[in-house]
């Protein structure tokens, strides 16, 4: 591995952690996943084509490790991430609105964790990590048409959970957690 690639991988760490957190919903499991993905990427750096996107390649490695871990029963596949230092500060800014935002974002994170794994990873790659449909299809080894259908199903389902009549927000504010 050359120094440029190494520096680029280090620069990707915040985004790799974000993707892993969205997949697993747990900080510890997410960092375990990032660690495993980085170790594998370093080991197999010869397989990466210079000039192609390093982030897409690493997302693919992480996605494969995650699916393997779920299949082997190492991950429960669904968690709830509670820690949100950002929103705690936000409460001081504008009480009611900030609380509403916090609840909404909390409900969204919950909703994402309730999606089937294959919809969850497509949703995170496209909507959070800004990968194109083509890059997402390559990362997951599925056709672009499948990316589109998983993506629309995931977003419709999320809308039902967060904004719909049987919304999750009521459950969250009711102190279910």
């Amino acid at each position: 591995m050359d120094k440029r690639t190494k520096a680029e991988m280090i620069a990707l760490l915040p985004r790799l952690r974000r993707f892993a957190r969205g997949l697993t919903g747990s900080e510890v499991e997410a960092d375990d996943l990032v660690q495993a993905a980085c170790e594998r990427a370093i080991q197999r750096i010869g397989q990466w084509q210079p000039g192609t996107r390093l982030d897409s390649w690493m997302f693919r490695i992480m996605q494969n490790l995650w699916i393997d871990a779920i299949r082997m029963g190492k991950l429960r596949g669904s968690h709830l991430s509670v820690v949100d230092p950002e929103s705690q500060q936000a409460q001081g800014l504008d009480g009611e609105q900030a609380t509403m935002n916090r609840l909404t974002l909390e409900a969204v994170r919950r909703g994402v964790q309730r999606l089937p794994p294959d919809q969850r990873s497509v949703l995170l790659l496209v909507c959070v990590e800004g990968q194109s449909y083509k890059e997402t299809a390559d990362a997951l080894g599925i056709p672009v048409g499948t990316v589109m259908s998983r993506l629309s199903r995931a977003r419709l389902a999320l809308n039902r959970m967060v904004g719909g009549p049987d919304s999750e927000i009521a459950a969250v504010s009711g102190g279910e957690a």
Partner: protein
Amino acid sequence: MKQLDANTLVAYVDGELDIESALQVESLLAEDSEAREIADMLRDSAALVRAAHSHVLHEAVPDRLLDIFDRAPVTDELGGDIVPPYLVNMILDAPEDGRDTAAPVLAEATKQTVPAPAISLARRRSIAAFATAALFAAVMVGGGMTFQKYMTGVNQAGLTHQAKTLAAMDDPWREAAFQEALETKKSEAALIWANPENGSSGAIVPVKTYRRDDGTFCRAFRTVDTGAAPNQPNYGVACREAGEDGRWVKTVEAISTPGADGKLQF
């Protein structure tokens, strides 16, 4: 919603359709209020999912992840002796083993040469200010989704401008990280920054420390930047200028790419 299926709509909302298909979808949307509602919902859901995960970018990367890269074998010596000789009077550190003690040496030596480096506090304040701004932005996205709505009408001619605007959004983060890295990081130690508003991130790595014959300290650095436009400089030299309140000012910038023989090309 008769002629529009959810898959086409989602591709339209995500900007994945070619311009012709996008125009077709828009004319159908104009006379289909149900489809417009679904399009809005698809757009809002993307913004919400992004906002719900942005806080991870604020967190410090745990040491155990950085340690993996300390152990990783590195094959080439990118950024060797490419500092123009006229700039360099004295090489303070020549890291044979990839590590050095330049930063402490620099800090020690500076006590005598540069008057009171009062920049430190100001710099911390500015970083805190950016963090607060980002916080506000995240809350805005979670609440109103105005940014996404604003993005809807972007046509193709506007996209280049949009990309430039987005790259410029990173400038405060980039600059704060740049000052922090050159002031506090040892050579070959990376400082990582991330802009939670748009997901861009980068690293600044000081690679060598020098002193000009007027006593000013200069450091060569490399940058990696996921948010930058293509063909931006990724290597340079900056000096801590007394006339600029001790801020690090870039004096040389270059694009470096390793050639076939592993040597740098400019």
